[in-house]
């Protein structure tokens, strides 16, 4: 798992530098930057295929209940335990390839004997929704903090800058696993039932808290350089309100790095969330979770490697597709960088 790091920042920064030039270059052809971007993107076959794959994953996540209804199973029933002859005495599927069959497409989960296909579909739903929420929220926080820091400057900038430095310098993985129980304990009395949403929210909160700094740092640098540019200076000199400067002058020039950064961050959050599941601090049973499937897989791979392949390969496809999509979007925004 890789937590969003500056690896992403850098690539985004590099294209952000050229955001301005992309605009002027487009004048040659006489199309708006957006149109031009779209045109370039459409021509990029890899990008289009990736987009379709990514879209498919989101659809799977969104339509999980529909898929379940069509497939006729759910992710909670322990088929293997209810129907004799599916699992052996050690809890492993009797049929070869992890119990794959016409009835159980992707086989059965060792131990509980739940349907792997349903686990995966609903697991994707859980993990993707967390990743999307975290991406959106941390991006918004990052935008606010980055712009505040860069625009106001002075002490505010110093404080936010130190906070960002500190957050970035920390082993985020460690903090994730350490802080999850703490966050949870802060919200629930020991006697209370821990609601599912709380763990969900805790994961989102912790990932967000540790994630916004990357984009904030990037935007701060962008704002600092933009602030010195003539058009912003001009706006300020002519007495435009800060809000106007920020929304009319700064933000339009920041969309490219923001979008690029967000597309880079999302697959990283998917990986991070799954990593939490793998380490046993992610979503709890019985909520299906992509990452927890890796934990099960890592425990049973000696005897049932098939089980590990489904979450593994599906995540590989998703992340590759999303990364390629990210590259394509970046290229579309910034044709100068050839990849």
């Amino acid at each position, binding site marked *: 798992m890789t937590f969003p790091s500056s690896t992403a920042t850098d690539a985004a920064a590099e294209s952000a530098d050229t955001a301005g030039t992309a605009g002027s270059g487009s*004048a*040659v*052809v006489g199309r708006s930057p957006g149109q031009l971007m779209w045109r*370039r993107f459409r*021509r990029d076959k890899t990008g289009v295929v990736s987009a379709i794959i990514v879209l498919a994953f989101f659809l799977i996540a969104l339509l999980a209940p529909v898929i379940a209804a069509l497939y006729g199973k759910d992710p909670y029933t322990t088929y293997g335990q209810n129907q004799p002859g599916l699992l052996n005495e050690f809890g492993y599927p009797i049929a070869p390839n992890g119990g794959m069959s016409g009835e159980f497409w992707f086989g059965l989960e060792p131990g509980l004997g739940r349907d792997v296909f349903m686990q995966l579909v609903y697991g994707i739903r859980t993990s993707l929704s967390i990743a999307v929420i975290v991406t959106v929220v941390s991006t918004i926080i990052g935008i606010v903090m980055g712009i505040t820091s860069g625009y106001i400057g002075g002490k505010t900038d110093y404080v936010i800058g130190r906070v960002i430095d500190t957050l970035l310098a920390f082993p985020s993985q460690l903090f994730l696993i350490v802080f999850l129980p703490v966050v949870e304990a802060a919200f629930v009395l020991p006697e209370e039932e821990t609601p599912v949403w709380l763990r969900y929210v805790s994961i989102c909160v912790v990932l967000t808290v540790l994630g916004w700094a990357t984009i904030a740092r990037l935007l701060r640098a962008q704002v600092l350089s933009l602030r010195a540019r003539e058009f912003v200076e001009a706006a300020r000199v002519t007495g435009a309100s800060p809000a106007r400067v920020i929304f009319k002058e700064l933000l339009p020039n920041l969309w490219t790095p923001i979008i690029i950064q967000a597309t880079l961050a999302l697959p990283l959050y998917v990986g991070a969330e799954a990593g939490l599941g793998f380490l046993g601090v992610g979503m709890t049973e019985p909520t299906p979770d992509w990452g927890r499937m890796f934990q099960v897989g890592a425990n049973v791979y000696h005897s049932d490697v098939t089980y590990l392949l489904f979450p593994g390969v599906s995540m590989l496809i998703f992340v590759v597709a999303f990364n390629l999509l990210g590259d394509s979007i970046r290229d579309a925004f910034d*044709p100068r960088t050839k990849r």
Partner: protein
Amino acid sequence: MTTVSWSGEPGTSRGPGPFLSVRDLSVEFSTEDGIVHAVDGLSFDLEKGTTLGIVGESGSGKSVTNLAILGLHDPAHTKIGGEIWLEDQELISADRGTMEKLRGNRVAMIFQDPLTALSPFHTIGRQIGEVYRKHKGASKKEARDRAVEMLRRVGIPQPETRVDHYPHEFSGGMRQRAMIAMALVCDPDLLIADEPTTALDVTVQAQILDLLKELQQQFGTAIILITHDLGVVAGTADNVLVMYAGRAAERGTVREVLREPRHPYTWGLLSSMPRLNSSVDVPLKPVRGTPPSLLNPPSGCPFHPRCDYPKLAGPELCFNQRPSISPETGHGDACYLTLEQKRELRTAKIEDRA
């Protein structure tokens, strides 16, 4: 002064000709959005000890032309046609080794922004010295001494200490001087200066131009001076080539082009330039419109969308057919207007301005 011959037949066999001869040069870049015709059928010659100023807006192909002379284009995305002769050596078809031996040695280049054009990671002395070592096989010590000497020659004070400094420790003018020192370290026959003064203060500009002139007189170097500033050309060059959309729009001696400009584009350039003797009340007139896209250049005369007189030469001519430069030698331009028409229009324009 007018020793330059402007013979224009491409591909003819070469006897003892000019020092540098560019014949029907074309440069095309393939990009995401299509093929860019950066230079299209350009020819010119240059004799030793003279200076040719190449003038044009950005994107007119002036820098591309000179990069092509040095073979510095990206071979993966660039297609080059035509011929470039440096004395009896054809450069476009030359192999990499030949070009490497040539660059920095017989042909040197000065770039616009000395800050980005110098490696920030190496000392000035090393950057100058390594050229000398590469081409002259000098030892480290000799190279260093040479670097000190060159720095002194270009007027950098305390060259013995400055030689060990990094570019970021130099001022802008000093950097450009160092750049020139680096270009001249092997006594090149041809120096290409690509906007050498654009990034500098006006006072420093003059110093640098003077320095170039001085060095040219000393060593007899041929210089190609690329600039968008006609003022620089007026004071420095012997001949001028005005480029527009990858083609030559007008060429001739400095006197010819500046005194009697023939091409409407040249008029535009001249009228957008402030003059000391003109009234401050008269506004400068830039050439209207924007430079054309080189992806799909306008049909006919590439200048016609910005030209004030496209219909004068006939109803369709300027729109459909590309004019070529005429006459073949001497003061020539690529415009369908008759010399008469040009003279009248120019006079009217200049009077208008005065």
